[in-house]
């Protein structure tokens, strides 16, 4: 199928992109990696008047160390995130989750920023950003602002990115030495997450010292499982303790009921998978 007609601009700087966004009006859309957007355009589920392609802005790509954080340009492709040594060393959970996104071809084109800005609750990376307390840098006509992940996700497909603004960078606090695991459950290998659990755990002397747990597809946005985190801290890293803590996972969730799974099954899965994710993380 063929998309509706649109105009296309390819700015070469963030400033140009913001200008283009302003000029494009309500119907302008940002094109990042395009791996969600282009199929949507093909099905004519969206008919923007103009696409603003961020692919020509080098400053939006790349991964760097920034003090106690790893800063990742919004247009950095999944493939590059997965293979980056800084990410592997300091934010391994992100690499683990990114590796499960879609398939090899999509991971070559799709971008971290695109995925987070798309804010599909079944997308895999929101839960990671949330669990690891990432900060999202958003640029607009009046300069840039930084939004914590906890305030970034607003609703289905809705984020704190305002009109005329662009997500430029995602900063992850280093979690060097933490154990981590992304436990994804889906109907077929290629399918979106039915439920997935992002877990990063720091163990000291056999006891869980710190825990970060994020949930994919358990509500209208990614969700932080604070109940589980609190229940884990101070517990021994044993199967029984972890499973008991995992029972808190449904607190504050509103799991969807759909053709893939009704809410009660998702809630049950979340408990089982949280136990598995945490145990795998503590290794």
């Amino acid at each position, binding site marked *: 199928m063929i998309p509706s007609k649109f105009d296309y601009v390819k700015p070469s700087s963030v400033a140009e992109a913001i200008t283009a966004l302003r000029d494009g009006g309500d119907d302008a859309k940002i094109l990042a990696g395009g791996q969600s957007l*282009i199929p949507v355009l093909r099905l004519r589920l969206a008919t923007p008047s103009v696409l603003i392609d961020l*692919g020509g802005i080098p400053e939006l790509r790349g991964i760097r160390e920034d003090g106690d954080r790893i800063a990742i340009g919004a247009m950095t492709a999944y493939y590059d995130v997965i293979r980056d040594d800084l990410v592997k060393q300091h934010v391994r959970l992100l690499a683990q989750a990114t590796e499960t996104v879609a398939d090899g071809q*999509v991971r070559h084109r799709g971008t971290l920023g695109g995925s987070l800005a798309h804010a599909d609750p079944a997308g895999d990376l929101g839960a990671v950003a949330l669990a690891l307390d990432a900060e999202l840098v958003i640029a607009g006509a009046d300069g840039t602002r930084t939004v914590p992940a906890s305030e970034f996700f607003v609703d289905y497909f809705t984020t704190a990115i305002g009109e005329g603004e662009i997500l430029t960078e995602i900063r992850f606090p280093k979690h060097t030495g933490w154990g981590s695991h992304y436990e994804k459950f889906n109907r077929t290998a290629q399918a979106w997450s039915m439920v997935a659990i992002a877990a990063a755990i720091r163990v000291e002397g056999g006891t869980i010292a710190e825990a970060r747990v994020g949930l994919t597809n358990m509500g209208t946005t990614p969700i932080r499982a604070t109940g589980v985190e609190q229940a884990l801290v101070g517990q021994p890293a044993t199967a029984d303790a972890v499973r008991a803590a995992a029972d808190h996972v449904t607190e504050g969730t509103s799991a969807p009921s759909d053709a893939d799974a009704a809410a009660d099954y998702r809630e049950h899965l979340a408990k089982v998978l949280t136990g598995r994710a945490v145990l795998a993380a503590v290794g």
Partner: protein
Amino acid sequence: MAQVRVTVDGVVYADDVEPRTLLVHYLRERLGKTGTLVGCDTSNCGACTVHLNGQSVKSCSVLAVQVDGAEVTTIEGIARDGKLHPVQEAFNECHALQCGYCTPGMIMQSIDLLGDNPDPNEQEVREGIEGNLCRCTGYQNIVRAVQSAAEKMKPGAQADVQSPVSVAGGGD
């Protein structure tokens, strides 16, 4: 209309395209590269897989304008001097295709996979081609072909680096 200048299978082309033109339609309808096929509209099937600057992509999920200045390799550009690519050979030898419709995409993705992982085990091959659907083979002989090609390519064979030759065809 937007301008696109792109090297496809070693030939440089310059064309005006509608921004909404998908790369796969540009390849098929403008350049006559009908070896690259379209099997779905949601980027699930992978039949349209080509290499863009050396990486596999689904050409139904890339706009033609986005490849301005880039290098694209299709199934029609991987044989060298009349000699098939080892992955092509292996697909034939291992009976890794039946109707042939998924085959171009499957081969292009397999070449990419072997570039990243020259000696994949069965599970790694299966996961490496999870974005390519086949309805005929049950995948078993495809997996076998990829592993067989890996064996053949072991002494450091270069899969897919191609330098552009002179301007021709629908070029400027």
